[in-house]
């Protein structure tokens, strides 16, 4: 009994997550059983088909297509958002000046902006813009919030050193924002992947490799089982990235 308690204490997170996954699959199976339509295939059929999908090279082209665009769009928006966030965090006047712009970008209906981008630019470029539009304000806000929440004592100490000096910013302020920035990354990665897939679907460009493109093609074909298969792959992909980030964060904290 004691060993069972110890086992639970050590692995309860993994056990609960596993049960959570089983619950989601059970819910899905129940839904497909109730609705009885090809639009919601059963998990069994979907996972069997997933095996076939995983044996096709086009699946990996689509996965890496989406992932590549996400990495480019995310990196660009993260770097720009963070740089602007540092600037706005250090100089309050800049922060006030940028407030309306950030609020506008954050609250713009993504789908509406997407339609305009699609009309103006190449269809295949739209996902970059959309990922940028979603991730950029989150990165900016994370950095600004992080800098704003630095302990007053540290701020006072920095005043002696010169709080707006590059050394103070890079060696003290930026490292102290890490928890907020990491939280921002966690929030925006999943969201970024979601809008990446959405924008690929809306872009409707069949020659662009991507999970969204594959989902749209599967819908048009119609091969709904493939749609679900690609959906699962997107979830797994993001889960793996978040897991990697989680361990990276843990490793950095332990040092």
């Amino acid at each position, binding site marked *: 009994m004691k060993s069972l308690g110890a086992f639970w204490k050590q692995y309860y997170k993994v056990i609960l997550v596993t049960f959570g996954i089983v619950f989601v699959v059970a819910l899905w199976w129940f839904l497909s059983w109730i609705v009885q339509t090809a639009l919601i295939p059963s998990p069994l059929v979907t996972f069997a088909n997933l095996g076939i999908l995983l044996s096709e090279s*086009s699946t990996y082209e689509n996965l890496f297509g989406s992932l590549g665009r996400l990495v480019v769009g995310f990196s660009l928006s993260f770097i720009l958002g963070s740089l602007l966030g540092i600037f706005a965090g250090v100089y309050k006047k800049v922060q006030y000046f940028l407030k309306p712009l950030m609020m506008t970008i954050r609250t713009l209906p993504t789908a509406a902006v997407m339609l305009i981008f699609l009309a103006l630019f190449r*269809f295949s470029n739209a996902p970059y813009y959309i990922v940028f539009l979603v991730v950029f304000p989150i990165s900016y806000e994370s950095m600004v919030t992080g800098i704003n929440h630095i302990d007053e004592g540290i701020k006072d100490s920095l005043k002696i050193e010169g709080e707006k000096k590059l050394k103070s910013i890079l060696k003290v302020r930026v490292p102290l924002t890490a928890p907020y920035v990491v939280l921002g990354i966690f929030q925006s990665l999943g969201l970024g992947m979601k809008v990446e897939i959405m924008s690929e679907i809306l872009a*409707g460009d069949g020659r662009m490799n991507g999970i969204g493109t594959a989902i749209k093609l599967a819908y*048009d074909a119609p091969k709904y089982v493939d749609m679900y298969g690609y959906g699962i792959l997107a979830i797994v992909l993001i889960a793996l990235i978040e897991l990697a980030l989680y361990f990276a964060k843990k490793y950095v904290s332990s040092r």
Partner: protein
Amino acid sequence: MNTNIKKILGLPLVALLITSCGVTSSSSSSFSSSSENTDYDFSIISPTGAPTAAFYQFAASDDFTTNSTATNVAAQFATTNYDVIVFDSLKGINQITNADTPSPYKLARIITKGNYYLVSIDKPEGSEPTSTDLIVNFGQNGTPDTIYKALYPDLVDNTVYVTSVSDALTVLVNGTYNQDAVDYVFIAQPALYNAMNNTSAATYGKIKIVADIQQSWFDLTGQNGFPQAGVFVRNDVYAVHPIAFSYLLDTIDEAIETSIDDPNTVVHALNDYGTTTEQLARFGFNSTMFAGVQADGANGLGLTVGGIDVNAYYTSVGLSAVSEDVFLDLYL
């Protein structure tokens, strides 16, 4: 693999050059100045589906764009991103004649004259739709809807609309709309072929063609087809490159004739282009579907080299005739 539209257009250009040389020296020199105008890379956009058959030779060209979302193509009328837009002729003309923001394009060709069918789901042979049936149509206020309303005015109240032909296909293979059993679906080729041959569809073996809309339209109006997809050409580019456009239209005409008379050539071209998935992504159909609907001169895609009187159609559906300014001087 990556064929340039300009290079393809070069073939008829060479043919014309030879012909011109054979006539008189003056015609040769006049062609020489004209040939500069043929040296032009067209940017073309088309929604996936039947009209793309007219561009099968441009499959690998980056200058030829296809898009599976019709609204993305429609939005291009507000830009000058493309020299040629292929789109629903009715909606395209509306964009041109829009009083507030007239689009800078003209209609050069009608390339599809109808590929619509009314089909029943799980009904006995010979069943006809009644006012108690649930009917699903697509493209509200576009050509399919206008034709449908003219042919079936009594069924309008029990008809529901989905956005695109893909959505109509989804309804047809599942047999339901919002959980309600659907009785009839108004759909276009090649989506119909796709549904009827989809062995995993809930409605497999239960779909029956109730009406060939093209025949019904002929019976009602005496018109051999109606303006479905049209080729719209950008005015300012046409003004500078009229001969190049003329060649492009000739190339499109030839592709359509090949698609009707010799579908195997197109089938081979599609197979050369890529896998069936790649073909579907590019054209909205694959070689098997194309062969199925075009075999034996059936021309299920309803391809045509012009020959459609747009104003006669407009009159038939109760719309005001459109001005001659809408049409390019090369319109057939």
